[in-house]
């Protein structure tokens, strides 16, 4: 498999203007050095809480926003610095499905025009073949063909999202950024849309970047999952690995935050995270998760955490858990071994409740 999308060290800062003479007084670090790759025909899930920068990454990949620095290599070509002409051509290969199906369709246009106009513009079909192509697209997303003569407001949320997917498919893309495509839908509809997306992926050989905050949906559709926290990826692994034994404390907290359907298990451990997400304008030195981390230690406040490969294909931005799992691997920015002894108790196994005793002690957070 080849890498279809390579994102390297992507950074997006938004300047905050202020003062009597407007100038940049601060920067919002929405995305702060993110790297990942997506193999052709696979799905990468990107999860994290609101404001962690996951949508910003998606918008940069489809060139709605220009990165502050870093590169996005799509099909072997860096798309961050293309001229607008070159970009227009590339755009058909890179499409996006938006979160809110109510605002993503022009209320004054019939479905036919929503789907046909981009195809005609890019010479994918002529005006004469357009109706046939539109029928084909509607069939593909499971809508009645008569839908093309109607306006978006005549459809339900799920149907609108199908139109949104059809619009993305219209240009024969190879990569689709799905920006929380099911978050705005009813639970019963979510499954339908997820299944549709899965089917389309196999049928058309698509590559997905699936952005979401509900772990259930992300796990269902993704081959690999990257977990983001405050503009950085903190853990990345195969979907099953990530769920069966998450390494980063934040991933564990995310997993445990998901509601448990079985009432008999409801009381089992599952400690909620305390504290608030820090401000992206004032990012702490060192680990960004340190204020909320149950296992935080003094070193966390001084050293920037780099992603290290704890086991093959499993990356984590926390040296303690990583070292513990694997002995030593990857390159940590820290001098690894000195922490080995303590990490033992912190995250020794994949049972989420191992470290209860440790959590109680964590108040002082310093037991090195």
């Amino acid at each position, binding site marked *: 498999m080849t890498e279809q999308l390579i994102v390297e060290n992507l950074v997006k800062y938004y300047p905050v203007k202020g003062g009597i003479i407007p100038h940049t007084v601060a920067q919002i670090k929405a995305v702060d050095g993110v790297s990942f790759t997506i193999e052709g025909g696979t799905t990468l899930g990107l999860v994290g809480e609101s404001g962690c920068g996951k949508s910003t990454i998606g918008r940069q990949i*489809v*060139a*709605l926003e220009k990165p502050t620095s870093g590169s996005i290599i799509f099909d072997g070509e860096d798309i961050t610095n293309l001229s607008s002409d070159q*970009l*227009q*051509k590339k*755009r*058909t290969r*890179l*499409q*996006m499905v*938006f*979160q*809110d199906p109510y*605002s*993503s*369709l*022009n*209320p*004054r*246009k019939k479905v036919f025009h929503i789907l046909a*106009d*981009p195809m005609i*513009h*890019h010479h994918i079909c002529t005006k004469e073949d357009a109706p046939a192509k539109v029928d084909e697209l509607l069939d593909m997303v499971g809508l*009645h063909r*008569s*839908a093309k003569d*109607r*306006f978006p*407001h*005549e*459809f*339900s949320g799920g*149907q609108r999202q199908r139109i*949104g997917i059809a*619009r993305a498919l*219209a*240009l024969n893309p190879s990569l689709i950024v799905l920006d929380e495509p099911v978050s705005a839908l009813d639970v019963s509809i979510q499954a339908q849309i997820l299944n549709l997306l899965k089917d389309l992926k196999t049928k058309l050989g698509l590559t997905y970047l699936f952005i979401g905050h509900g772990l259930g949906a992300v796990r269902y559709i993704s081959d690999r999952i990257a977990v983001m926290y405050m503009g950085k990826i903190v853990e990345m692994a195969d979907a099953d690995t990530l769920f069966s034994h998450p390494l980063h404390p934040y991933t564990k907290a995310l997993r445990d935050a998901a509601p448990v359907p079985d009432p008999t298990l409801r009381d089992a451990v599952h400690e909620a995270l305390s504290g608030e997400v820090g401000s992206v304008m004032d990012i702490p030195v060192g680990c960004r998760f340190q204020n909320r981390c149950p296992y935080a230690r003094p070193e966390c406040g001084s050293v920037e955490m780099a992603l290290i490969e704890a086991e093959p294909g499993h990356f984590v931005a926390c040296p303690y858990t990583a070292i513990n799992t694997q002995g030593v691997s990857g390159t940590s920015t820290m001098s690894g071994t000195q922490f080995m002894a303590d990490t033992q108790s912190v995250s020794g196994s994949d049972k989420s409740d191992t470290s209860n005793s440790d959590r109680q002690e964590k108040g002082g957070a310093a037991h090195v």
Partner: protein
Amino acid sequence: MIKLKPVNTPSSPSSTYNQQIMRRFFKHKLAVISLIFLCVIILLSVLAPLIAPYDPNRITGGFSQAPSAEHWLGTDQSGRDVLSRLLYGTRISLLVGFMATLISTVIGVVLGLLSGYFGGWLDMVIMRITDMVMSFPYILLVLVAAAIFEPGLTNIILILGFVDWPGVARLVRGNVLSLRETNFVKSAEVAGMSKWYILFSEILPNTVAPILVYATSVFALSILDEAALSYLGMGVTLPTASLGNMLNGAESLTILTSKPWLWVPAGSLIILLALSINFIGDALRDAVDPTSTK
């Protein structure tokens, strides 16, 4: 109003956006009456050559005669038939109002679209010009312009057209600013559509309703301005009749008090026209406002 309908019966005819607007519009009785009135007036003025009893510029009777069987609304100070002049004058006034509105709306829409969508220095320049035009005393600006260019039908249309656009420009700019952040515009960008397609096919159709509402008030205002200018002798020049210059006679107190047929018809027609256009505008605004519950 929310209408539930079964999702799998796409064949059922559904009410389009335009039908909804029509339905809400026709709930305003006053606006419907105004619309009928306006249509009748427009029809009469368009058909003036056919129905006017006399040539509006020919002297057909004595000076300032009171209404009679021959001259239903009497004759003016030069002995011309007031009814005929009223029909032709309405024609001119409506023409001036319509053309001036058209010009100012087109200018305002184009500038507002450019300003709102492209932003940056272009927005800055356009908005400062808008502020400048808006900050001039309106009637003074029009009078000076009318004095510089010769008064006449074409010039009065151009002058009014070039003075009324800032309001439209601001309105459109504001709409564009919010529309360009919507996901459907973003998705058109992702689809690689051209800027002109996005501006005229995605954004413009979604601002038509507020533009239309605003244009009605500009229309009413233009008719009033034409009347004011013509009354002051700076607008449509005699012998061409317009509703404004038909009021000239009312300058003298004796006419004002003792010969009402010289000014009452034109004066009341101006008021009724402006009023009915404004009523229509009000109803339109309610009709296109999706949050209105009327």
